[in-house]
């Protein structure tokens, strides 16, 4: 949000309420009609429009709401990828380099290797469940709100062309 005063923001002329509105609801944006009135609708150059559409994405990317969604995604995915990938590599490397260890019996005919292999299946199912749950509860709503808001903004820019 500090970056709001950056060089690009002037061109788009998105007003301050933009950011508060993310939290408090977007209904009024159309009323304040951010970018459209700044230029005469007809005869604008293609590049200009493209640049302003790009600015919408830059602004959204810098918004607190988007950064929250992104960090929630990353906070789950980065550790999860690190864990399952090293667990799989460890499994494959151990199975190929230390078959003696893997052959150690645990109960009946079941040995360490069998437990580790079935463990891979189990952890895959668990990770899948955890990811789906995390995405559903922690990300979907915020991402959907951002989607409509962003499309509203880009439509505002695109609307200027007709």
């Amino acid at each position, binding site marked *: 949000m500090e970056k709001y005063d950056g060089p690009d923001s002037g061109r788009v002329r998105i007003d301050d309420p933009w950011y508060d509105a993310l939290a408090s609801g977007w209904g009024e944006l159309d009323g304040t009609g951010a970018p459209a009135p700044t230029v005469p609708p007809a005869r604008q150059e293609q590049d200009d429009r493209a640049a302003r559409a790009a600015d919408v994405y830059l602004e959204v990317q810098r918004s607190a709401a988007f950064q929250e969604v992104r960090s929630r995604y990353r906070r789950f995915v980065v550790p999860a990828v690190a864990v399952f990938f090293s667990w799989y590599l460890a499994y494959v490397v151990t199975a190929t380099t230390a*078959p003696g260890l893997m052959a150690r019996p645990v109960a*009946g005919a079941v040995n360490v290797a069998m437990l580790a292999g079935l463990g891979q299946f189990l952890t895959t199912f668990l990770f899948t469940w955890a990811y789906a749950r995390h995405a559903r509860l922690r990300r979907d709503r915020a991402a*959907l709100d951002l989607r409509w808001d962003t499309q509203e903004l880009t439509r505002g820019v695109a609307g200027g062309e007709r």
Partner: protein
Amino acid sequence: MTGNHQTLALLLFSVFVAVTLAITTWVSRHRHGSAEEFYAGGRLFSPMENGFAIAGDYMSAASFLGISGLIALFGYDGLLYSVGFLVAWLVVLFLVAELVRNCGRFTLADVVAARMSERPVRIAAGTSSVTVSVLYLVAQMVGAGSLVALLLGGTSEAAQAWTVIGVGALMIVYVSMGGMRATTWIQIVKAVLLMGGAITLTVLVLVRFHGDFNQLLRTAAERSGHGSSFLAPGLKYGGDWTARLDFISLGLALVLGTAGLPHILSRFYTVPTARAARRSVVWSIGLIGGFYLMTIVLGFGAAAIVGSDTVRGSNASGNTAVPLLALDLGGGPASSGGTVLFAIVAAIAFATILAVVAGITLASSTSVAHDLYASLRRRHAKPRSEVAVARTAAVGIGVVAIALGLLARDLNVAFLVGLAFAVAASANLPVLLYSLFWRNFTTRGAVWSVYGGLGPALVLVLLSPVVTGSPASLFPGVDLQYFPLENPGLVSIPLGFLAGWLGTVTSAEPPDEAKHAETEVRALTGAGAV
């Protein structure tokens, strides 16, 4: 195997073909020939339907017959191999499915090209996608020929050739007439049949052992002739350090390659939203995981009931383990139960090959038309003709696949599946991940990472023991073997990532921050997604 089996198997397979052909005609009755319709089936499949279709696309005959056969012959090492195919889906679920659904339209190249200078990136990604598809396709077609010969007992060369031609012709009809919608329905029907067959056999095996998995393992170990080492790793992928490294390389390629397979990526565009893409992956992980768990039971069951030696005597690579198991579970070769079960398994295997081949053909014709043709055509060509190009490409690729399948039918092409995964992981995955997650990624980085993964993977295979220099090679007479591993993944995957990084840091053009913002916002929110 008597004539009874064959007649019944052919009858069941004909029913499958008739049903799927009916579906193809039905879904294409009011097609309007748009790209959306042909490449993505109108994007209106439900997550469950797409989940079944993904599972159908992914579980090839190599999984159904090959992995359970590996387990029947080598015990634990077959299981070790199958784990990579499942864990790979976590990469797809976490890093790829939703983001790709949000950013792209039809292909992998769409995602990358959105950020970069379009033409070189599209040509690069299109080339590597077509390469992966063709490698995978040839493996399937060769498999089709030998499998049919195996299951129908018709070992005559002509019968094999006609089967390959027949499978190829059917697949060309499906894909060029029905596009994604027909292909998806074929995958769904096939996945249901495959799961149904696997569940039936698994239940029968478990009933035979009174639900005692421990007893099943003990009997399998006893009858395999290897004793307790049958239940531990090392029988197939043990041996010297080259063989062990080779397996690590294969494991890496499997787990990273799935997320770069074009026919899997294109499936995410058949659902309306990223959320639906996620839910379809969850469905497919459930189905695929359940299926591989059942192949474990089937593999050890075949070793315990049929016996490893009998399986090996029937087919050296174990592909007949499940059909033989079905014959025994049904009551033996002379009984009607055995005949029926065997015929069902054979028909499912045909259906599996046909469906997988159709899926890959569609994906590669999409890459040819949407990426390569669209970038290389003359400026004044009409965009409307893209779907026509895709249909033509499907026919062309089908003909090439049939020809290669016939030419290569006597060669040992088992390495091709692993190679397809290795190329996908080296050429497609790095560029995809960099595009989605790396702010400073540039056009040059994208192009370098594709060719930097594709080139080494292919060159290393040419220099490897699968092509020359050993008795099992494609060309045993020549010796160009400089690279010891059969699977290039261990070297080529890091090279793909390295080349992408190197291309990016050395490029003169600054990274386009606005395009990165657009990709990131669209990927995570779905704004502007089609």
